[in-house]
């Protein structure tokens, strides 16, 4: 029994995944931008993060993709939600935006996207003659971070930045209790 009549959709799978992820990302982002409840906006942001991580994975940047999840979803998003929860007592959390300003912002955003889309569409980027498999990057990233001639110093500076942010955030949050 031959089943060869079934269409070979394998070439379409990456496209399908991309459009799925892109739709998810963009819709979630728009939701995050306009959702009336801040908590919904935060969870929209989470979906956008997942979508972006998926796009990274599609682009062969697996390490970055999972860094995105661990940092943004596991870290920043949790912080944001905490922020929402801790400040949720007022009507401000209900995001009663001024309609005029919102209309202005939406128009501007739409126009800007329109212009950007035209700009992107009318630019021809050099393209590869044939698509190849994404190459593994994790160990290259690791080596770049620890190579004094490449990224060692920025890497260390970033660690100092994190430490400073840690101390600063702890200090700012601490004053809160004393008052």
């Amino acid at each position: 029994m031959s089943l060869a009549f079934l269409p070979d959709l394998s070439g379409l799978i990456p496209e399908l995944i991309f459009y799925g992820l892109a739709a998810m990302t963009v819709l979630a982002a728009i939701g995050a931008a306009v959702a009336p409840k801040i908590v919904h906006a935060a969870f929209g942001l989470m979906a956008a993060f997942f979508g972006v991580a998926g796009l990274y994975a599609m682009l062969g940047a697996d390490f970055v993709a999972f860094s995105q999840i661990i940092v943004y979803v596991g870290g920043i998003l949790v912080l944001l939600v905490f922020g929402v929860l801790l400040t949720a007592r007022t009507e401000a959390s209900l995001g009663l935006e001024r309609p005029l300003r919102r209309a202005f912002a939406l128009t501007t955003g739409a126009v800007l996207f329109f212009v950007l889309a035209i700009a992107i569409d009318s630019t021809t980027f050099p393209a590869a003659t044939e698509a190849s498999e994404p190459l593994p990057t994790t160990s290259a990233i690791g080596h770049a971070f620890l190579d004094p001639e490449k990224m060692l110093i920025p890497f260390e500076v970033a660690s100092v930045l994190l430490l400073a942010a840690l101390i600063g955030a702890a200090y700012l949050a601490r004053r809160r209790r004393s008052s």
Partner: protein
Amino acid sequence: MLLAAVGLNHYLLVGAALFCAGLVAVMSRRNAVAILIGIELMLNAANINLVAFDHFRAQIDGQPVIDGQLFVLFVLVIAAAEAAVALALILNVFDTRDRIDVDELDTLKG
């Protein structure tokens, strides 16, 4: 073909859309946390562009290109630091004024 082959343009468009969404959030929102959300969206838009350019350059060169990815990792670091400090600030403001509507934060006094 129903769907066009996915190229650099598609990723850039997603990035642009994400950026505009973030911009809308920053421009229209009054809640400080929501503005922060908008900023994170814009950062992610930039990151998508970085990784996409990286990927397609690697396809042309035929060897791994990681500069953009390194940048993305640094952006992650900075975003984390920024979010931590910003939220600490927001909590502080909330503590003293009982609201976090940025439009009302136009005096320098606590």
